[in-house]
């Protein structure tokens, strides 16, 4: 009896301790977002002068500055980012699932070799092949098109690996056998029977892929130069390196807050899948 009571209070104490830690961590995690929002309401000179969490009054001015800046095609940039991020995410998720499915379901000679190969290339940093990549797309006259940003997403080794792990845990091979007996073709099986089962994994990789593509500065900076093609991270870089007569931190923070907004929305919409899905796929960027 006594022991139990003790256990009860200590459990309460522990629980209280947990909440304290969790709340603290959450504050730390949300703090950058708060800072972004606050800074986007402040005037450039104020931001430079001192830090505060009290919102300023310059939000409208900053927004107007971003919108009035004729060089920055912000709506176009948003659109470009959406096109690139959406297309590359969809392609990468679909084809990665297909590749993983091939390795998971079919027995063929090069199966194991293919998987080892994918694991191996998963670890190669993008920078390593950047020079050759630029030469290639210049030679193909693909500069200033979205093709070099979208099509390579088909070959996303990390995404394949994740899908493979996910299938391992939640895609019994019997389903495929059963559908074959029902006379379903291989593509049909994959598209209509397997894909729905993989929904949580799709959601997770969508968020990963979308965030990565949305925030990507490196590859677009190699490919896109024309104003009408630029994506949001390129415009942020443009504001960051603005000449000093135009450099405006308020405008910069407004732009960053603006471009993070869509990712946060997508994340919140898909977050329940993330929490389930990451656990099942077990991969990390």
């Amino acid at each position, binding site marked *: 009896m006594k022991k139990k009571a003790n256990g009860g209070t200590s459990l309460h104490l522990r629980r209280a301790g947990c909440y304290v830690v969790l709340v603290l961590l959450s504050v730390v995690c949300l703090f950058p977002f708060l800072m972004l929002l606050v800074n986007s309401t402040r005037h450039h000179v104020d931001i430079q002068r001192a830090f505060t969490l009290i919102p300023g009054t310059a939000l409208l001015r900053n927004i107007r500055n971003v919108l009035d800046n004729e060089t920055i095609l912000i709506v176009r940039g948003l659109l470009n980012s959406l096109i690139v991020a959406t297309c590359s995410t969809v392609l990468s998720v679909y084809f990665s699932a297909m590749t993983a499915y091939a390795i998971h379901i079919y027995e063929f000679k090069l199966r194991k070799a293919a998987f*080892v190969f994918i694991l191996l290339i998963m670890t190669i940093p993008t920078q390593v092949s950047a020079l050759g990549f630029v*030469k290639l797309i210049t030679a193909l006259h693909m500069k200033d098109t979205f093709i070099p940003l979208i099509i390579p997403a088909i070959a996303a080794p990390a995404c394949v690996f994740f899908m493979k792990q996910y299938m391992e845990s939640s895609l019994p091979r019997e389903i495929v056998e059963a559908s074959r007996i029902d006379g379903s073709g291989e593509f049909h099986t994959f598209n209509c029977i397997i894909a729905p089962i993989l929904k949580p994994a799709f959601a997770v990789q969508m968020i990963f892929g979308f965030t990565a593509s949305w925030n990507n500065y490196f590859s677009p900076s190699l490919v896109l130069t024309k104003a009408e093609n630029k994506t949001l991270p390129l415009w942020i870089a443009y504001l960051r390196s603005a000449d000093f007569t135009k450099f405006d931190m308020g405008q910069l923070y407004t732009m960053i807050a603006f471009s993070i907004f869509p990712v946060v929305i997508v994340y919140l919409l898909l977050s329940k899948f993330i929490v389930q899905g990451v656990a099942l796929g077990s991969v990390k960027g």
Partner: protein
Amino acid sequence: MYKNKKKKHVSYSKWGYIFMLPFFLVYSFFSLGPLLSTFYYSVFENYMSGLNTIGPNFVGFENYVKLFTEGDLLKYTQNTLIMWALGFIPQILVSLLLAAWFTNSRLKLRGSGFFKTVIYMPNLIMASAFSMLIFTLFSNNGPVNMLLQQAGITTESIHFLSSTAGSRGLIALMNFLMWFGNTTILLMAGMMGIDPSLFEAAEVDGATPFQVFQRITMPLLRPILAYVAVTSLIGGLQMFDVPQILTNGKGGPDRTTMTLIMYLNNHLYSKNYGMAGALSVILFIITGALSLVVFYFISKQRKN
């Protein structure tokens, strides 16, 4: 039945190739080609001097020799590993703790869905924007310094980014914040896989929560922990944008925060195809070896 099944698989094997085809076609075209050309240039002297191309002149392994003798390669490897470890150790500890709490059926934490969602959010901000914010917070007259001075802990402002400990610490802090949510979720998956009856038995025997954690959770979690560690190490070796933007590409002070990829980036910046190629080959060997470890580990895990 068994025979029949096998026969069927054989007849379907071509579909395996068909399903993989897009991946391998696209990869060989957009990545493998450029990658091989990078490797090829590693044995040439080839760079841009202004707008003139020097080379390519075949120099054998001279670039490699240069990297090992002049390039401080070891130092940058060390920097990278130290910063990775500084971020990884607290990350794994905090994640273990959180995962244990989230999966503990007796604690019954409320709002855990909210917390799980929030701890992943730092990963959504682009590294460059995140670095800018951290830079502001820890700048010489920044809010952190003001707080420290107001609390009477320091009298003069601390120049965090001009000390090795400070800048490495901040880089580690950012890596920690960006990835601990992810790690927590991974570890939770591992913990949820543990048979609950083990915990019940331990409770009946009067084990303290710490003992339960040490004796039951940890050993059973070891495979997934190792997996997390190795994948995180691979990610760590690729560490680039956080230190690059936080130190303005300098890797200061005294190049103690210069990572391997930052070093590679320096050669890319000067379009030194030869040196960048050689460095890429070395990086490829290191990361490739590590990924084989991962693979070995995963196939072992599957057997268990």
